[in-house]
């Protein structure tokens, strides 16, 4: 008797999607909404049940009942460890909240929207749970296909088609990079199961393995929007409906990094056993560049969704930097940050959706002073900003605390300061941008906002013009997200649980043993970062204050001496960075190729 739990998070939404698509013409909007919410809720419940089982014992599930013969794996397996099951629960929760938010609200594209959302959910679940490399590619592609379609939901204007075309081209190239990497690994190991590949590769690190690593990593970096692969992300976010942006920024992008973590731990663990330091510097360089570009561009944007999108770029860069430290503790910190960021960013996107609905625009310039009556919206918006800066009480702060412990554990205490600065930079820039928009929109302070070209892309409102009312249930999703982001700091089991889960991800022998025999090896959880928390809280407070100052130098630039108008300067032309973000698919593919060449050469030269 096999427990059916691991299969349900995929089977339920897929069946639901089929049903919704079949009944599309006959279902009323409300019926389609309720049906899809019910399916998402049951998926969420099955994911949570799976998580509760996985916390005790990793669940290994063989599809078609094809168990391995000796060391050869015949079928496809799901390995539901706490991290995978937890991310699947997060996916379920975000889709559930997004569907509640879009209840009779966002244009459903003739009722196609619901089926697409459910397929997207199934794809994310499959992507995190799978223990098979090619199966991962299949779900990667399924996730992308659903995302491309959802991105082009609003077909009334040409901008969505530009955004989704660029998104589709770059991410399809990513899929083929990943597939090429899988094929190369298959050629040398004769296996598609990740555990078997890891076993067969051993400590091999010839150019072939390193190149396969490059292809897989860069392919997933494209999804994770690491510079210079990030260009598609702002374009896609600017045009996608709010509820879809929540899923893109909240989880889909981060899943790219999750895949890199998983592959590095299961397949390439021994490959880099001797070259860990070199790999660290390569990843730190890419992550650091991403933080800088994302942070600066985030502050320079005046289109709300693009601004939040660049903040996502900045924060995924930060997650990469944390992962670059290496070691189980670093993975734990990254996961803490991933979850906290998902809640904070989702909340901000939900709030921007409410603003778009009430105020009929998403450009800072147009919104100036028009948000004064929206007190609740303003409160949620500013809270989200504080969350981005890892302000005290927010669980993003825990990551700051953990980062110094992790770098200490990895023996790179010297880098610790630099990393803290990067963390603070990311927080200050993104938080300041959010504060600036908030001050302009909800308070109407200072001078009229500066604007730029892309902010003038008039995004048509997603909703009908007649009813500009918002209902209480529109505030539920952002409120739930913000509350969860805060509550996680105070749930004592949370930090311990994540550390233990990360240890299980990191430990390659335990993973292999699990897949082949189904028995787990007891592991010791990495050490706690409790001592670092007060310091992190102080740094968080400073970051919030700095962000406030920076935002003020923009908002009140008229009253300041020229030398003090730092914010206004950062908002200014920034000619080169803006020129690079050109909206031309050819350029994006070009930078992608450059990134591949650089990452590939660096890996090959340094790690040989």
């Amino acid at each position, binding site marked *: 008797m096999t427990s059916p739990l691991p299969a349900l998070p995929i089977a339920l939404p*897929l069946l639901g999607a089929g049903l919704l698509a079949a009944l*599309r013409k006959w279902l009323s909007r409300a019926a389609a909404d309720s049906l899809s919410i019910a399916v998402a809720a049951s998926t969420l419940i099955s994911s949570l049940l799976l998580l509760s089982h996985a916390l005790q014992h990793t669940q290994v599930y063989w*599809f*078609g*009942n094809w168990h391995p013969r000796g060391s050869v794996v*015949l079928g496809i397996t799901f390995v539901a460890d706490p991290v995978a099951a937890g991310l699947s629960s997060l996916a379920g929760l975000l889709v559930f909240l997004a569907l509640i938010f879009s209840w009779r609200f966002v244009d459903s594209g003739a009722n196609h929207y619901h*089926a697409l959302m459910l397929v997207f959910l199934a794809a994310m679940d499959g992507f995190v749970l799978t223990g098979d490399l090619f199966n991962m590619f299949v779900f990667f592609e399924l996730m992308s296909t659903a995302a491309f379609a959802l991105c082009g939901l609003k077909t009334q204007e040409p901008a969505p088609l530009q955004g989704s075309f660029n998104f589709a081209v770059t991410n399809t190239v990513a899929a083929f990079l990943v597939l090429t990497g899988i094929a190369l690994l298959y050629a040398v190991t004769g296996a598609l199961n990740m555990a078997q590949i890891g076993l067969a590769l051993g400590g091999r690190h010839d150019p072939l393995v390193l190149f396969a690593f490059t292809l897989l990593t860069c392919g997933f970096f494209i999804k994770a929007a690491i510079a210079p692969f990030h260009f598609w992300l702002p374009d896609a976010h600017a045009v996608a409906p709010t509820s879809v942006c929540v899923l893109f920024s909240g989880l889909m992008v981060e899943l790219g990094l999750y895949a890199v973590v998983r592959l590095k731990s299961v397949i390439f663990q021994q490959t880099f056993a001797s070259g860990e330091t070199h790999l660290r510097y390569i990843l730190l360089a890419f992550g650091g560049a991403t933080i800088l570009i994302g942070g600066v561009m985030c502050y320079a944007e005046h289109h709300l969704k693009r601004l939040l999108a660049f903040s996502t770029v900045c924060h995924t860069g930060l997650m990469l930097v944390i992962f670059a430290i290496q070691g189980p503790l670093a993975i734990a910190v990254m996961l803490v940050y991933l979850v906290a960021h998902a809640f904070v960013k989702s909340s901000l996107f939900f709030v921007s959706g409410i603003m778009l609905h009430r105020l009929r625009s998403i450009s800072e310039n147009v919104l100036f002073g028009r948000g004064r009556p929206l007190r609740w919206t303003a409160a949620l918006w500013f809270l989200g900003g504080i969350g981005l800066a890892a302000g005290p009480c927010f669980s993003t702060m825990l990551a700051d605390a953990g980062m110094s412990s992790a770098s200490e554990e990895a023996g790179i205490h010297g880098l610790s300061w630099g990393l803290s600065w990067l963390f603070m930079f990311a927080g200050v820039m993104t938080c300041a941008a959010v504060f600036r928009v908030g001050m302009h929109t909800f308070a109407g302070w200072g001078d009229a906002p500066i604007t730029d070209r892309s902010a003038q892309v008039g995004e048509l409102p997603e909703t009908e013009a007649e009813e500009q009312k918002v209902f209480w249930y529109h505030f539920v999703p952002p409120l739930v997200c913000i509350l969860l982001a805060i509550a996680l700091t105070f749930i004592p089991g949370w930090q311990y649980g994540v550390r233990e889960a990360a240890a299980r991800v990191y430990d390659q022998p335990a993973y292999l043993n699990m897949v082949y025999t189904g028995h787990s090896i007891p592991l010791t959880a990495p050490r706690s970062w409790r001592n670092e928390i007060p310091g992190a809280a102080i740094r968080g407070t400073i970051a919030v204050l700095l962000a406030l100052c920076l935002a003020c130098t923009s908002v009140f630039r008229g009253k300041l001496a020229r030398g003090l108008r730092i914010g206004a300067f950062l908002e200014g032309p920034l000619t080169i960075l803006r020129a690079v973000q050109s909206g031309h698919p050819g350029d994006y593919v070009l930078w992608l*190729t450059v990134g591949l060449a650089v990452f*590939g050469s660096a890996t090959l030269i340094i790690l040989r």
Partner: protein
Amino acid sequence: MTDRLRLAIFLVAGPVFMGLYCYAAMNLPPWGQYRGPYGDMIAKLAVYERHATDTVNAINYDYRGFDTLGEEFILFTAVIGVMMLLRREKDVPTSPAGKVADRPPLSESVRAVISPALLITTIFGFYIGLHGQLTPGGGFQAGVILASAAILVYLAANTEAFKRTTSHVAVEVVEAIGAASYALIGIVPLLIGLPLLTNILPLGVTGDVLSAGNIALISACVGVEVTAAFLLVAYTYLEEIVTGEIPEE
């Protein structure tokens, strides 16, 4: 960025990438010396364990059937995406565009050839679909062939008939049911405590059309889905031309 600058940068980065690819590939096992073990193991087992002589389909629909489930839903999603992107917007009124390019000009002789061609294509499609577990072919290939039959109808300039076969809501419903029934077949074993997509049908005699358990059944679902999917895509592209109506500006 100018076209020339873009090309210049690419001509530096692109060859570097290709060079890395080639350099890495020189470490691969030489061409023509596949070493196993995965493929060899399945080639040995499939005939005995699954009574399927076409091992490729045994992998596709059974050993790695879960991949194919995902693949079917990729197709399903893309079709929804195409229909959604090219949907008619609600408030935009349409105007009859008149006979602009209604029917492609075809000579009588071509039309005379097309009817038998249609018959042969359809029979071939069913043959390919039903023998998937034995010989090359299977649901996917059959689906594409059957859908091409409908395109032949259009080529025969019988737009009315094409409209009847495709514009109907039924095709859309069939497509969704085809995709969902694959998931349903997978779920049935869950009820008796087996993992998703486990075969619970009798395996039959190797080489028989009705052998190899659920492979034929899944293959049939895939065939239905693929046929409907390609028909829907073709119709969505042709909708304006067939109905002769385009949305006003």
